[in-house]
């Protein structure tokens, strides 16, 4: 059994983008520690795994492709014995599985890490505390070491092209403690907010859901890698789906570009977006706190500025 194990999350027969990012982390760890790495996948994604990982262990999940985090963690606990490091993406499901698995194995867990350093053979995992105001490096005692990584903390690993042979492992199924089913949301052409490289986000300044078309138009101008987000009151009032809400009680994102439109920039909001590489804020109030964290700001009426911005992008592309 390999020493560094990536637990895969799948989208149909493919691996999710955040899983490919964790593979990159595994490859870096592998070369700095001189240890082998491999991936544990549900059997329906074995082929996709074989294109990126040097070693694949395929777990028979049968017809039930949605067993739930509790079952998944109990199954994985049966096969990770001889690994040194177990890593997974810190998605909702990833965090859920890792929390349970860590307890099954009775080891500590560094959840939601943003990176790591290897210093003379010792791994230090980086995490954000106090809504990102403090960065901590932690060391894990206990084997295996367990960590989950926030989406977009690494660039996705490139496919090596070739397909490796997979080992199939069988585990005992446990009786699930809850019955669970997924009400899947409508399939979107756009990436999930946590995976998008550009995020356009709307706040209460938009006045109502009927005005979102101006953000959609900006999104279209920016191309297929852009996704929509919103502030909490916007999703609380059901102007937009909950899944788009970013911030302390929503999702934490780290796009290359975050465009905040009609958002005041409350600390709870900023907690979820502070890791963006570049922030552009559009607000009519020059004293709005969002300008304190923005790389670029435009003070003006969003109903004028956003269409002008979309037009300027189209003009120059």
């Amino acid at each position: 059994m390999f020493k560094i194990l990536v637990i895969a999350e799948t989208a149909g027969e493919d691996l999710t983008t955040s899983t490919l990012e964790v593979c990159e982390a595994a490859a870096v760890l592998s070369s700095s520690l001189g240890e082998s790495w491999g991936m544990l996948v549900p059997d329906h994604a074995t082929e996709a795994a074989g294109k990126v990982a040097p070693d694949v262990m395929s777990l028979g999940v049968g017809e039930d492709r949605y067993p739930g985090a509790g079952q998944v963690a109990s199954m994985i606990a049966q096969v990770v014995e001889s690994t040194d490091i177990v890593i997974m993406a810190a998605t909702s499901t990833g965090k859920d599985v890792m929390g349970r698995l860590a307890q099954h194995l009775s080891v500590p867990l560094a959840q939601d890490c943003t990176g790591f350093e290897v210093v003379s053979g010792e791994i230090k995992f980086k995490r954000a505390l106090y809504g990102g105001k403090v960065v901590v490096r932690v060391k894990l005692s206990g084997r295996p070491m367990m960590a989950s990584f926030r989406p977009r903390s690494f660039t996705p690993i490139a496919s090596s092209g070739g397909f490796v042979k997979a080992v199939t492992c069988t585990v005992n199924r446990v009786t699930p403690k809850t019955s669970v089913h997924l009400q899947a949301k409508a399939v979107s052409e756009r990436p999930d907010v946590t995976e998008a490289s550009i995020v356009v986000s709307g706040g209460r300044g938009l006045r109502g859901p009927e005005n979102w078309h101006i953000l959609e138009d900006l999104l279209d101008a920016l191309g297929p890698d852009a996704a929509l987000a919103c502030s909490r009151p916007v999703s609380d009032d059901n102007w937009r789906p909950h899944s788009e809400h970013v911030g302390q009680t929503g999702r934490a994102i780290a796009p290359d570009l975050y465009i905040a439109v009609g958002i005041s920039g409350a600390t709870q909001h900023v907690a979820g977006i502070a890791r963006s590489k570049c922030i552009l804020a559009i607000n009519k109030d020059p004293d709005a706190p969002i300008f304190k964290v923005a790389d670029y700001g435009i003070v003006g009426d969003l109903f004028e500025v956003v269409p002008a911005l979309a037009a300027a992008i189209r003009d120059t592309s």
Partner: protein
Amino acid sequence: MNIAVCVKQTADTESRPVLGNDQSHVTDKGLVWIINPHDESAIEIAIKLRDQHGGTVTLIALGPDRVESSLRQGLAMGADQAIHLHCEIMPEDSFIVSDVLATSIQTDDYDLVLTGEVAIDGAGGQVPQRLGVLLDWPCITGVEELSVESGELTARHPIEQGDEIHNCKFPAVIGVNRRIGEPRYPSFKGIMKAKRKPIEKKAVSPASPQLQTDSLELSTPRSEGKILIYKEGVAAEVVTLLRDTSKVI
């Protein structure tokens, strides 16, 4: 229905953390203490469930003396009683914390244990999952909607791909998100009543952390950027900055 709510006292979001001299810990200096926002909503849901189904709401907080103020606040909201698992400093390894909480939970008889999904300061993000395994109960986390009908529990947990809908029997551990409902403010009557409600104080000695802090640093605040007043040409100027200077589009 007997409900326990695990309450962590956390630093308020607006607080500016200050590091100790040895850079190994965050000092208590200048921090304003609040109930972890997700836990505050958990208390709200617990009170509502009790009012519908009967039973008691017990708050459980692990930490130093200061956490008592948060327990009083939860009692003032309407919880019936509280347990203060007292130790000298707040343990920040959720592995260790879960162990102490589970031991306390096991000595009493609960149908439901509610927690927040994550503490906003330490961001452990794992106590509910661990409690589920330790107690060998069903566990659902990230819950934004919860209902109880004829002894069965239904919970909605939004994930990236949609909504997970769970059903299970009691006893269960539920980790909630703030969005499950805004908490009430304690009323004046509630505050007066809370003064007489019991807080049972038990000394505990949590094990030393296995998630060890190697170093801490304050993040450099984002520096203020280039702010332009909108007029003709500004949109094009910003697009050029995004494309050529920042290279993000």
